[in-house]
């Protein structure tokens, strides 16, 4: 049994257009590594310098992993993982709060 991962439109170029892909791993980090082995390029869009990118949201079931344990968040068979890019922007040219 595996984990279902929902992929947003902008990252479907790495999944041959698939909206959901299956993966496995005990933690979010291991799951991303597993996905990268079949969908090369995906990992770099999610992770930067060993951290989840600031403007990518990942949810395990209904929880934002930032409020769990980030990339170390445990994953269990049957969990559902959703990736969504943040919808963000604004007139500030450079100073982005929280980045």
């Amino acid at each position, binding site marked *: 049994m595996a984990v279902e991962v929902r992929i*947003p*439109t*902008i990252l479907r170029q790495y999944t041959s257009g698939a909206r959901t892909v299956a993966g496995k791993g005990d933690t979010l980090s291991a799951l991303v590594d597993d996905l990268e082995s079949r969908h090369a390029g995906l990992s770099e869009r999610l992770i930067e310098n060993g951290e989840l990118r600031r*403007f990518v*949201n990942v*949810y395990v079931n*209904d929880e*934002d992993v*930032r409020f769990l344990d980030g990339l170390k968040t445990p994953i269990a068979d049957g969990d559902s993982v*959703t990736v*969504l*890019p*943040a*919808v*963000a*922007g*604004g*007139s*500030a*040219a*450079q*100073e*982005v*709060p*929280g980045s």
Partner: protein
Amino acid sequence: MLTIRRDLVDAIIAHARKDHPDEACGVIAGPAGSDEPERFIPMLNAARSPTFYEFDSMDLLQLYREMDDRDEEPVVIYHSHTATEAYPSRTDISYASEPNAHYVLVSTRDEGEAEFRSYRIVDGDVTEEEVKILS
């Protein structure tokens, strides 16, 4: 070209005016593949800032789940600039993540007349497009 109903344009401008001087943001969803904006969904600006906007992460999940269930997509993603022109900033361009969406910008810097413009933002390239308003 963005084709959009007058009442939706008015709703976006009213939201931008209400949240001024903070930036306002939201989505107009429409049937997937239709390119027709139909359902006005104002979002909370979690940053509550005059120079930055971001959808709250839980609101974002709920929004996308709801659109999925209804077979919709974000046809329009809008936000306001409250002291500058209605043109995408570098921040807007770097975080734009819906290549199929019309990015609408409203400027509320002029109290009398709101500027309403629409863009495509794909891979860091900005293209302004014509806006056709249906009355």
